């Protein structure tokens, strides 16, 4: 009996302490919490780092302008260590913290891993991965991606190949989900009834492990097919290793094409001292000063200046992914407030949000922002930047 009484008193005390906590901690109600799950360490560390700085830059701009209806944004950054299991844990924690939405993850495996978690919690996830490509509301009700995926990027490269008479194509992709997305994209476009079947001949295809720093064996096999163009469906510094090893094997005359996610300062810097022949379907932010006057140029230039002031660097597509993910959310919250369900509904009604990579179009059937038309072919100018190629 006494036990029950003391238990009752303890319970009442706990409740009252919790209530005091709530009222004393009123400040937490004054911000809009936004979660970010990105890869700040692990094999894709470079993505998370750049995305973080871009998100911080935009969040500071938004907060300086008074936030969303006077309420400031609070960004909770979580590092998934490029690991899906870690990403799941981080996403769960963020959901427990009542975030309005989760920006990221940076990678395909991590995005796929947390998709069921955000769906269960009914929290929007705006992925920054090029391999995570949710078709629409039926397939992934709570998942979006602001990155034009492997399919459109490859189609853009193939358009360029056809226009420039580079009809013998060899490809090399890693054994990760992005590599598989690339394989599927290439197959759909080049084989059977694919739109490029008959126009472009695939003279070789090889796979490699991302942990393997030597791909010369694979490149030699590709070289045997006498390709006019090699496509590397990989994201990150490995693309420079491929360029270097192509040069070493006497393939320096053959251009190497890759994804837009490789428009990083690191890639440009590492390309110095190679033949430097790297082309890719990039985005507006890579060629800011070449853009025509208009809304997009203004949006891009504002960000480029703010970012340069903050980091002393020029932003590239990856920064654009971070910026654009938050931009979508900010626009949605300006329209319907920080309510996850209302944000989803708003996006599914059909919207176009101006991003610094490209104008992002969303609807109930389209949860991925970019397409072929929005991408721009460009070539690397090692150590300096990117040059827009003639269409």
């Amino acid at each position, binding site marked *: 009996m006494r036990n029950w009484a003391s238990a009752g008193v303890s319970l009442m005390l706990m409740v009252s302490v919790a209530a005091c906590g709530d009222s004393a901690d009123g400040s937490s109600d004054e911000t809009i919490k936004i979660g970010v799950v990105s890869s700040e360490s692990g094999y894709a560390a470079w993505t998370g780092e750049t995305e973080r700085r871009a998100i911080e830059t935009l969040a500071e701009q938004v907060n300086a302008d008074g936030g969303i209806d006077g309420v400031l944004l609070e960004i909770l950054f979580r590092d998934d260590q490029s690991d899906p299991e870690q990403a799941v844990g981080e996403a769960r924690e963020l959901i427990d913290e009542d975030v309005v939405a989760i920006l990221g993850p940076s990678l395909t495996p991590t995005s796929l891993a947390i998709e069921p978690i955000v769906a269960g919690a009914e929290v929007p996830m705006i992925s920054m991965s090029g391999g995570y490509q949710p078709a629409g509301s039926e397939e992934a009700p709570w998942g979006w991606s602001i990155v034009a995926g492997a399919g459109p990027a490859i189609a853009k490269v193939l358009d360029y190949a056809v226009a420039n008479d580079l009809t013998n194509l060899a490809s090399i992709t890693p054994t990760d989900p992005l590599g598989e997305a690339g394989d599927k994209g290439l197959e759909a476009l080049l084989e059977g009834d694919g739109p490029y079947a008959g126009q472009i001949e695939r003279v070789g295809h090889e796979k490699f492990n991302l942990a393997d*720093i030597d791909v010369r064996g694979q490149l030699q096999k590709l070289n045997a097919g006498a390709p006019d163009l090699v496509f590397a469906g990989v994201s990150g510094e490995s693309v420079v290793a491929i360029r270097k090893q192509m040069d070493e094997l006497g393939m320096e005359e053959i251009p190497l094409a890759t994804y837009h996610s490789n428009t990083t300062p690191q890639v440009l810097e590492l390309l110095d001292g190679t033949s430097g022949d790297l082309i890719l379907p990039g985005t507006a932010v890579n060629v800011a000063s070449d853009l025509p006057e208009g809304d997009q140029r203004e949006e891009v230039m504002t960000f480029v200046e703010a970012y340069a002031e903050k980091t002393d660097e020029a932003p590239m597509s990856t920064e654009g992914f971070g910026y654009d993910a938050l931009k979508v959310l900010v626009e949605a919250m300006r329209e319907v407030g920080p309510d996850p369900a209302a944000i989803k509904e708003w996006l599914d009604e059909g919207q176009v949000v101006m991003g610094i990579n490209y104008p992002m179009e969303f609807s109930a059937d389209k949860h991925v922002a970019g397409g072929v038309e929005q991408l721009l072919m460009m070539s690397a100018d090692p150590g300096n930047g990117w040059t827009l190629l003639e269409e």
Partner: protein
Amino acid sequence: MSTQQFAQLLISGVTSGAIYASIALGLNLVFAVSKSLNLAQGEFATVAVLLSASGLGLGWGLVPSFAVAIAVTCLLALLVEWSTFHVARERDVLTRLLVSLAGVMALHGAFLLVWGKSSVSPAAIPGPAIDLLGARISAQAIWLIAVVVVLGIGVPLWLGRSTRGLSLRASADNPLGARLYGIRVQNVRRFAFVGAASVAAIGGLLAAPLLLVRYDTGLFLTINGFIAAVIGGLGRPAGALVGGLALGLVQAFGAAVLPGQYKNIAIFLVLFLIVVLLPRLQERRAVAA
């Protein structure tokens, strides 16, 4: 397979093999003295490359950058020897291996702090590439292969003939006996570490322009160096060159025959043959005889 393809695979294999051999040689040197694996062996190559990249970035020029990189790597090797090997010298093999692994993790963390996550890739040594049966070998690869072959043959020869080399072997075979003969075992082990670090640094610096190197590349090098060392005979410095080249060639031709992503299967198959099947066959033969 055309002659040209064959020649190109041969060149690729020997080039990769040279890198592995430089790591294997260091592993063998340390193993010969301490009967322990130094898992930080690949880290010596990594740190030398990262240091030289910083030196080149500061405009020091090639020779001063390389010299400073090798010197600092040797100092780091002494620190690794003291903090992982000397401190745990009385412990069992497994503990020593774990301490060495902890050392590797600590080094990764330190490299990450100093150099960040980005890779470095120094410019190649300028020079014309040479045609060999229609295949191509770059000046950088020739330097790498030549220097590693000289080290791979020279170091074991010198060990077999000089007093230093003999004291090194004596300390390994019978530490107590060596001590009674006035050999200071810890000094010998330190010497082995510095030798191992120098070899790894030189190999790493010459290989770096062919690869991308970042804070965690060392582990990949150690694993491949270890396989090379096992193929050539662990603890036998003379086996490092053979083991390294064999591993490089198996990888290159494995990649040509198997789908690229499975090329490491060829390596593990060879390793399995050497480590598991060969001793059994020899045992059977011995029993039969």
